[in-house]
């Protein structure tokens, strides 16, 4: 048991190992509730896409697949960065871990900027229901429904990315100051779990939003 681990031991726990296991279990329980939060949005999407298959294919073809693909790659790389930062801390590293975490936060910011550009171009193309929606044709209402769900799902996801970027920045500063070490890195571990979860949500958003109807254009 390291001094760092003993210093962070709360009185309701007997040993750092027990405290660490409780923290990990609690984080996974929180992530399970997050799975259900996004799951409901995905369920709404599934029902609507089943009902309006042609309209959803037409709508999805108007999304920016190049942006979506780059955003996916950015998030996947950032997830690896968070995992490597945790590994570095466990091996006794400090500067490399802080740099990796700062890089993870930077990639998260890149994701948000790219998504902002996407939102802006959707506004210019008149694909924002309620604000500016000019799409016409037989599937116009289904396209509108798709873009409602698109903004709801990606909006909540981006909110999670914003929270993740803040978390990663805080963790980078803490790692830089040497608050974590081989015996204690629980806040960093849980922040990394959160970031990986946000990545997983996007792994499902990407084919559902960007890749639908591409083969039948």
């Amino acid at each position: 048991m390291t001094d760092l681990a003993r210093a962070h031991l709360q009185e309701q726990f007997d040993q750092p190992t027990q405290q660490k296991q409780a923290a990990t279990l609690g984080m996974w329980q929180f992530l399970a509730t997050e799975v259900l939060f996004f799951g409901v949005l995905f369920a709404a999407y599934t029902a609507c896409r089943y009902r309006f298959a042609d309209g959803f294919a037409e709508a999805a073809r108007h999304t920016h697949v190049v942006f979506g693909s780059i955003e996916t790659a950015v998030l996947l790389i950032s997830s690896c960065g968070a995992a490597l930062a945790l590994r570095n801390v466990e091996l006794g590293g400090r500067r490399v871990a802080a740099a990796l975490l700062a890089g993870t936060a930077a990639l998260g910011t890149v994701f948000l900027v790219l998504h902002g550009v996407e939102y802006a171009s959707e506004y210019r193309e008149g694909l924002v229901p309620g604000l500016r929606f000019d799409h016409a044709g037989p599937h116009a209402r289904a396209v509108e429904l798709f873009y409602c769900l698109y903004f709801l799902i990606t909006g909540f996801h981006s909110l999670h990315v914003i929270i993740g970027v803040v978390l990663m920045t805080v963790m980078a500063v803490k790692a830089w100051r040497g608050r974590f070490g081989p015996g204690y890195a629980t806040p960093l571990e849980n922040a990394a779990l959160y970031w990986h979860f946000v990545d997983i949500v996007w792994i499902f958003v990407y084919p559902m939003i960007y890749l639908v109807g591409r083969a039948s254009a």
Partner: protein
Amino acid sequence: MSGSSPPSLRSQLGALAGLLLLLAATAGLAYVPMGAFNTVVALLISLAKTLLVMLIFMRLRSESAVVRLVAIAGFAWLAMLFLILMADYLTRVTLPPPY
């Protein structure tokens, strides 16, 4: 920490390489006309990517059984939601409006 040593650099970078390859695969296959199988392939690839992230980045492989159980629980309830939802939609008869 619970006694386990940190994962190897090779496993982490290998997972990232796998994820990026699967991303390229899902993007490419989306343009191949396969009818309903486009959706099936896309979802299977997403599932594979999720497993890579959960097992290697989130270290579920080396976690205790209770943590793994909790990790699966969220998805199990989600599967139930989809089961009941689609059991309704897939068996619905669309009635014409009475006018």
